[in-house]
């Protein structure tokens, strides 16, 4: 019966903001090549769960295991394996869209990222805007660049907070297809979303959260 440890295991997670619980005893597991969607109304704590997983919030109790080991962003392997896109991403104001992707790929050890960057720019529809600085991109284009930053690097676990934000309909369709491909290549995906078509197309399971009183 004993299989390999799941890609991500969350056990009894609890989080407090100023003594007030926002997440109470949350447990789920995510296997390789699977996707789980966190759903629930605004304020249900979806972003908070994702923050605990990427290490920018400290859980009050519970365990988060990546491949059987406690997740800790101070460990290099964790930083290498977890690609995330939360609202806290900001860009270098003086590097173009193409240069951002080039830099990120190289920072993760890819010394020849030219083809990858070109394909990805084409995929997210930013080929024409490749030379633009982030400040001059439209908000939807900035969102596409942000998505590309998570896809230009190696990853075993993708953590996305409302990835459909600000995308047009064609963009959401593309995103759904792309995430399904990601699953096929073995990447696990944990994402929060309000878009039912995206959830239906991508998620193997959903975890429903409700705002605590």
């Amino acid at each position, binding site marked *: 019966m004993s299989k390999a440890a799941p890609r991500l295991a969350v056990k009894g997670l609890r989080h407090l903001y100023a003594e007030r619980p926002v997440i109470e005893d949350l447990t789920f597991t995510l296997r390789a090549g699977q996707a789980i969607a966190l759903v629930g109304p605004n304020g249900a704590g979806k972003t908070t769960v994702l923050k605990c997983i990427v290490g920018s919030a400290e859980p009050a109790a519970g365990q988060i295991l990546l491949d059987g080991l406690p997740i800790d962003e101070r460990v290099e392997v964790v930083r290498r394996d977890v690609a995330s896109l939360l609202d806290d991403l900001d*860009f270098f104001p003086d590097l173009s869209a193409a240069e951002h992707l080039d830099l990120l790929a190289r920072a993760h050890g890819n010394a020849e990222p030219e083809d990858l960057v070109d394909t990805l720019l084409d995929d997210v529809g930013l080929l024409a805007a490749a030379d633009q600085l982030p400040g001059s991109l439209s908000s939807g284009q900035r969102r596409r660049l942000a998505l590309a930053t998570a896809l230009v690097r190696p990853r075993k676990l993708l953590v996305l907070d409302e990835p459909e934000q600000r995308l047009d309909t064609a963009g959401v369709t593309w995103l759904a297809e792309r995430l399904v491909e990601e699953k096929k290549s073995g990447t696990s995906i944990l994402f929060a979303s309000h878009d039912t078509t995206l959830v239906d197309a991508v998620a193997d399971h959903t975890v429903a959260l409700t705002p605590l009183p």
Partner: protein
Amino acid sequence: MSTADPVDGPVVFDPADFGAIPTSKELRRWMRKVRRGKADRSVWQQFEDIYVVIFALAMLGATGGNVVLNLNDRSAGCTTASCGWLLDTVPLILVPLLVSGMLRVLLSIGPVSASRATGFWLLATPVDRASLLRPSYRLVMVGAVVVGALAAVVGWALFGANWSTVGEAAVLTTVVLLCTACVTVWAQQTGARSRWALRAADGLLVLAAVPALLLAVRPREEGAAASVVLGLSTVPASEPFLSAAEVRLLVISAVALLVAVALVVFTARSLDKLSRQSVVAGGELLAGIAGAAITLDVSLLADVVAGRHWRQVGRVKSRRGRGSRGVAMIHREFLRVLRWPRRLVIGFALLVVPYAVAGTGYDVLVPIVAGLAGFIAVRPLMDGLRSVCRSIGLVRALGMDLRELRVIMSVVPGAFAALWAALATPALGSPAVAFAVAVGMLTGAVRQASARPPSYSGPLVASPMGAIPPGLFSTPIRGFDLLLLCLAPVLLGLSGTWVVAIPAAVCLILFAVNPKQA
């Protein structure tokens, strides 16, 4: 059919139903009350702030005292020719420099400014705009007065003027700066005026550079180096109560003061001509911060200026990177620095400062002035570090930890600092001092650039500006503490070992500690 509904047809909007529009005073009082309520700590509970303030005061006191002592020691051998020459030259450098700096800094923050929240919530209401903006305007004017008076007193007193000259210089400089501040408020009304004012600022910078260059290349006569005086002691005490020249200057000062006050009052009348967009400087970067508090955070100010620049540029020619991991990051930093060459040019142009000060013969001042000039030269090259410190999302995307990243991103500025200090070595006197200056300017700039952006979601401190995040009051001197620490052995005249050992230790510790994350 619709008899149940008493209101038939479209709802008519009638302003009369809403009562009188509140005055801005009522609104401000209410905001203040709400903000006070949010604060949950007093200023004195803030250990970090107190540490930095006490530390800076102690260092400044020790340094300043030492400088004055040194200058007094030399006051015996002043030759009138060289003292007079200096006194004639200093205003030609100091005044254009102050006016130019004032124009740039003020225009980059507005100068009349409001937070994005105020812009959105208050300035969009029919409440009288001029009176909403008046506190910010007053702050700008007070700032101009303080800077003008301080700079004039320090400048003229150090370079050997007597007290009445210092006083008059202070009055005149203050008036000039006050008028400059008024001009910036006037220029804020339209983009074209702001651009002209910026051009004028650049012109003044060139104007200030000419006498500074003359000073830097002036051959140092034998003995002249030791021939400068604090002036105060050489003024004969038995002069008549007021000489004719002094009366004349007093009259000029009074007239100038009148003109300035009239201008300030007149400009205040035009505050309602300012557009909301010009007042909410920096746009999204200022999202959280309370209006006037922004002026405390130098790093945020630098972000605003850079952000605006790059938004205007909009598009660049993408350059391919080279290598991978650390090497790629360093290469990218190098390309980034070359992308805004103007900053490099200004950085190297600042080399004239230590040489000019050395030319005056005030050798004790050279290291500290060189350190400050170097800091100003190297700080703009830290934009990359600034970006990663502002966004943990970016750090996560890069897959490195912030400490590692901080070391990598300091390599290019570090090389610049080393080169800069090496080029300044003849003015500084010895390679050991140059080392201290290089490390001081680098570590100071790194510490300042890695400041976390203020966060309003944590604990807040009560202040006259409303509730502000702890640590904000110490941000203006953040970084300068390390600069002073590195230069302390030089300033206190310790031996060569200390001059090298202390900066080396500061450098090692700075890069070894883990920066706090946003």
